[in-house]
């Protein structure tokens, strides 16, 4: 009883947040799933329970297939691109270099800008006009003798181009993560490896890289969950065009243009599930790890 008196005030102080998270996160996720399992395909009908019918039926829509394929290609290019570029920038800087602060600030500043503003510049840069009508990168490429591209309007590789602004925006963040990771490797460990006869490459391969694994995992999770729900950037660059459709944009169209709540909720549920399958194990793992240390 005495104990309860010591911790009870704490619980009370957190109660408003517990209620808010309970209602707005878990309650609404549940509500959304329930809506996805009804036939409420317009604003007025009551919506009868139909089980997982919507989750199955949506695979009959060519647009859904397209948007899933687009999301996968975007994710692959964005996550790998930002990871590799961020890692490389950190690698170039990790031993200290003159002007490091300036370099870091420049690589990182795109993060302060909204995806909408980023999208406006990159839409200009990735304009698909060619020859006389070329602006943006195509004009630049024309001058230096590189081939011109359709960019995000390319039917096959458009989403790879769409990932470029996202790489531009997020690789500085990844760089900062890796730089902290590199600096977290104790110099004595590197020295010990050198004494044991490792060359510099060996030091990286057997000492530094294994110690970067947790950072890499964090970066993967963060980039992955940004990527699977990408919305602003796509809308700012190309609007609601099918050629760059992704699930988040499709959901927006389903809710506002098709006025089909059940379909919108179904797409939203798939987005949540695609993130949850890797974020939940990661959270459990990282909380356990923290408790151990």
């Amino acid at each position, binding site marked *: 009883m005495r104990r309860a008196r010591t911790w009870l005030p704490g619980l009370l102080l*957190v109660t408003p947040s517990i209620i808010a998270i309970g209602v707005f*996160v878990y309650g609404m996720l549940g509500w*959304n799933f329930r809506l996805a399992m009804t036939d409420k395909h317009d604003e007025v009908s009551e919506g009868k329970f139909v089980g997982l019918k919507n989750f199955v039926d949506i695979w009959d829509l060519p647009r859904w297939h397209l948007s899933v394929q687009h999301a996968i290609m975007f994710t692959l290019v964005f996550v790998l691109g930002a990871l590799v570029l961020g890692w490389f920038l950190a690698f170039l800087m990790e031993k200290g270099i003159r002007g490091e602060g300036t370099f870091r600030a420049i690589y990182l500043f795109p993060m302060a800008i909204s995806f*909408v503003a980023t999208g406006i510049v990159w839409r200009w840069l990735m304009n698909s006009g060619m020859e006389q009508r070329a602006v943006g990168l195509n*004009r630049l490429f024309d001058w230096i003798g590189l081939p011109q591209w359709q960019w995000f309007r390319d039917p096959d590789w458009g989403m790879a181009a769409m990932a470029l602004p996202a790489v531009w925006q997020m690789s500085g963040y990844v760089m900062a993560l890796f730089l902290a990771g590199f600096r977290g490797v104790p110099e004595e460990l590197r020295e010990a490896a050198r004494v044991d006869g490792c060359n510099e490459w060996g030091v990286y391969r057997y000492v530094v890289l294994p110690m970067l694994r947790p950072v890499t995992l964090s970066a993967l999770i963060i980039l992955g969950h940004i990527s699977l729900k990408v919305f602003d950037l796509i809308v700012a660059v190309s609007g609601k065009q099918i050629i760059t459709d992704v699930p988040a944009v499709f959901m927006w169209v389903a809710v506002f243009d098709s006025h089909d709540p059940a379909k919108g909720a179904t797409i939203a549920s798939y987005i949540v599930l695609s*993130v949850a399958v890797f974020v939940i194990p990661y959270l459990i793992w990282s909380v356990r790890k*923290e408790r151990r240390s």
Partner: protein
Amino acid sequence: MTAVIGRRRVSTGVRLVLLIAFVVIFLIPIYVLLVTSFKPLTEADPGQAWNLPRTWTFEAWRVAWEKLAPGLWNSVLLAVPGSLLSCVLGSMNGYVLSKWRFPGADLLFTLFLFGMFIPYQGVMIPLVQLLVNLNELTGLQGVFYGGIPGLTLAHVVYGIPICTLIFRNYYVTIPDELIEASRVDGAGMLRTYWSVVLPVSAPAIAVVIIWQFTSMWNDFLFAVFLTGPTSWPTTVMLNNIAGAQATPYSQQMAAAILASVPTMLIYVLLGRFFMRGLMAGALKG
């Protein structure tokens, strides 16, 4: 020995050249934004796309400002109170979850953290419905749904996880003895918070305000679902301006810069804290 030093110098040179090359690539979009925004309409032809303006003009900036100003103001009304509210909630939660723990606090914290990663699409339809209901219930049309208060509410609630995380990770570094000493002196939870914890909270407060301000300012998803023409914040207005076929590039670019000025200023002036917020996002425990 000299060979080693020589090789190291070469490798430093190569690294420097590569880093500078990346700086140039990273700055290309900024060059485009600035240069295009100062061009008069007469220089809008594709052939001069990459040239500096021959005559510099503020005309596009003036028009962009006129079109964007209501959105900028709405964003201020959203992000200033919103980030302060986030701070209050995050600080209280972080304090309790690190220094005044109750049974099940770890589980609760994990449940909170999941809220940080959920794609907001998953709550959007119910959220819209709830805010519409609140409008009807209170009789306040255009306040919750279609208004800045509703948008602020959404941002503050969904910001609880990250703000709690930042404050909690910061408060963990306060020695338990300080809290204990305060308890022994007979101070209760709130008294201890007020006299021991809050006075040293400044760095975490800065991180949370910067983080929340930036994400509220830059958000598009909540804004596009929850607001209407009179309450559109900057991002939605910017997207509308840029999406209109008739808007010349110079105005689009000027508007994009104007929309980014507040967050860029924060980044330049308070970059150190900005970084810490980013690192907290990486769940560094």
